[in-house]
């Protein structure tokens, strides 16, 4: 499929060509039709000059009667011989405007050779000219049905047009072909650039356009090479960042492991319930969790997925999450309520999905106002294509302008400074859900609080 740009280019180029063709053709047509008009009145062709000359000689040397006889026998275009009174020798009607034109041309300096003046044997002056085609044959309508003899000069008008159709079609086809080629030539590299940009925007930094461009040398090719340079730099910096995050997290784990071993040893050797040691152990667990989350996020962003893909019973998975969450919630005198259980299957990695939904529920628990309920709603759309999980809390919600930021790492809503956490949970949730081609969105509820909606595509149920 060609893109819109291609068709635009094609349309413009072709229109331009058509306009050119029309312009050139019409200028030809105009000049031709002027010649037509002249010849419709006065036959200006080379044959006409010859015939008028012959007629003039006949008038001069043989007299009018000889001309009459010649004119009646001759099958060629009619030659008129008009006397000063404006009458034709054969009594044929002559349009007055035609006659006026003949006289006018006759007196201009460069009189065409198709008009001759001749002194007849009878001593009268005659103007001789040949008039072709329609002018005399078809007298003006105002005159009524005059006895206009058909001069029958030249081929009819219809015959003259038909052979023009073939070159016209050929020209059209040629212009169509060149327009297509031109449009393709310009639109194709732009198209491949667009696909490449799409891929980069989608997180695939490995894509390059150089192979598509090949040896082409123009601004579009330069643009393509610039794109490749940009992608290279982006990839290098992203890889570097990812590696740094990964290395730092990894390197932090070794000292953490030593710390844990050391505190364990202290406990074992001195065997006392020292609150300071307990504090150290708690903090180690906290840091370890943070490092774990960072690693998880960096893996997700690198496209490494945890666990194996399988059929996931969403009803069971949500129930597991809520059972765990309620264990914690009850301790805080809160409760997570699942209003209507919805059976449904999704193809995915249960561990990632579990973690994602768990993070959203935990987030809701953290921000819910004291002793309020968290509601979870599950639905399946009519086409059985999407499993939706909505987590609704009655907390303070999030300012509208901060809603899109909610799923970025380390984001914390302004008034959430007191809560425990690093702001990685929802970022991990988003990455996990997106890895399943699903979406996760947040909105403020009319009745107050935040609603987080997770929509997961379901595979069509096999027969």
């Amino acid at each position, binding site marked *: 499929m060609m893109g819109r740009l291609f068709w635009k280019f094609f349309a413009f180029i072709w229109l331009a060509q058509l306009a050119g063709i029309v312009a050139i053709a019409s200028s030809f047509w105009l000049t031709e039709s002027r010649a037509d008009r002249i010849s419709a009145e006065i036959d200006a062709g080379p044959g006409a000059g010859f015939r008028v000359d012959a007629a003039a000689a006949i008038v001069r040397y043989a007299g009018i009667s000889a001309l009459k006889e010649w004119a009646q026998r001759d099958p060629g275009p009619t030659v008129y011989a008009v006397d000063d009174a404006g009458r034709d020798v054969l009594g044929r009607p002559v349009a007055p405007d035609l006659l006026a034109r003949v006289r006018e041309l006759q007196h201009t300096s460069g009189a065409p050779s198709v008009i001759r003046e001749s002194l007849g044997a009878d001593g009268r002056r005659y103007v001789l000219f040949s008039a072709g085609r329609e002018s005399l044959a078809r007298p003006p309508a105002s005159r009524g049905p005059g006895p206009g003899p058909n001069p029958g000069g030249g081929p009819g008008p219809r015959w003259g047009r038909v052979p023009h159709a073939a070159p016209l079609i050929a020209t059209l086809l040629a212009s169509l072909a060149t327009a297509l080629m031109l449009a393709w030539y310009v639109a194709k590299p732009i198209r491949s650039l667009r696909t490449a940009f799409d891929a980069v925007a989608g997180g695939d930094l490995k894509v390059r356009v150089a192979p598509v461009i090949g040896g082409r040398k123009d601004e579009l090719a330069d643009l393509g090479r610039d794109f490749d340079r940009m992608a290279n730099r982006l990839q290098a910096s992203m890889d570097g960042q990812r590696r740094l995050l990964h290395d730092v997290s990894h390197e932090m784990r070794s000292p953490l492991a030593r710390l844990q071993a050391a505190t364990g040893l202290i406990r074992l050797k001195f065997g006392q319930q020292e609150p300071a040691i307990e504090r150290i152990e708690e903090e*180690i667990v906290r840091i370890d969790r943070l490092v774990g989350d960072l690693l998880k996020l960096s893996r997700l962003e690198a496209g490494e997925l945890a666990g194996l893909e399988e059929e996931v019973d969403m009803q069971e998975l949500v129930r597991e999450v809520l059972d765990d969450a309620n264990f914690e919630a009850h301790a805080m005198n809160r409760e997570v309520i699942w209003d209507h259980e919805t059976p449904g299957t999704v193809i995915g990695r249960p561990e990632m999905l579990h973690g994602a939904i768990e993070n959203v529920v935990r987030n809701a628990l953290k921000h819910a106002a004291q002793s309020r309920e968290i509601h979870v709603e599950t639905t399946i759309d009519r086409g059985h294509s999407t499993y939706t999980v909505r987590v609704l809390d009655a907390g303070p919600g999030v300012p509208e302008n901060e809603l899109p930021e909610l799923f970025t790492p380390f984001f914390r809503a302004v008034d959430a400074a007191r809560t425990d956490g690093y702001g990685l949970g929802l970022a991990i949730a988003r990455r996990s859900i997106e890895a399943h081609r699903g979406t996760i969105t947040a909105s403020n509820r009319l009745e107050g609080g935040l609603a987080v909606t997770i929509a997961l595509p379901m595979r069509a149920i096999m027969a």
Partner: protein
Amino acid sequence: VRADALCLRRSAVRGVVGDEHMTRVLLIDDDEKLLALLNDYLAEEGFAVRIENDATRGVVEALSGDYAIVVLDVMMPRLNGLDALRRIRLQSTMPILMLTARGDDVDRITGLELGADDYVAKPCTPRELVARIRAILRRTQTSGSDAVAAALVSGGLTMWPEQRRAEWAGEPLQLTSTEFSLLEVLLRHVGYPVSKNDLSERALGRPHARHDRSIDVHLSSIRRKLGSLPDGRSLIQAVHRQGYQLLKE
């Protein structure tokens, strides 16, 4: 195979005498400072520890047959920890506890597939580590306190739990200690499904964690060793939502 059998017999022998002698543990990790701390901790807990920060030497040491268990860090540079695991498994079914990075499923699953008995995610508290070591050793050292050398039999499968010995269709089965324990639990409940949680509690000595595939990996390894029945089915069947079942013949 002979070296293997030897190994088994030796560890069985040590199991009997192990009450007087300290259990020997081999720790292979590239973090020397951590090794020193764990060495102290395990010594306090009554283990005889040998530490090794080089995987190649560690493999040689492990295959010497002097140790009741190997604790192996699979994330070591140079000789990859997983490689070390593979090399030990080529010649021995001795208990191996691996240390993996927390959250790194790939290493964990690969390690289990290569025959590690269980894993501990690093960083872990030393208490956790000791608990895991003890759980594995408890299984391998179930000494014949009750002197009845009872054999468990079902069809072509025979197991002598006291001797940690198993036969399938008359051929000796080479099982790691976790595999042996899992198969034993299934055999004791032959014809009935056993839940993953029961299997985990009895064979690994820990409750089944959600999304933990350890049991599945171990069982698929046992299935591979057993081959399939004449009708093409596997002797061990997964029962949806109920766990695994050893088919009664």
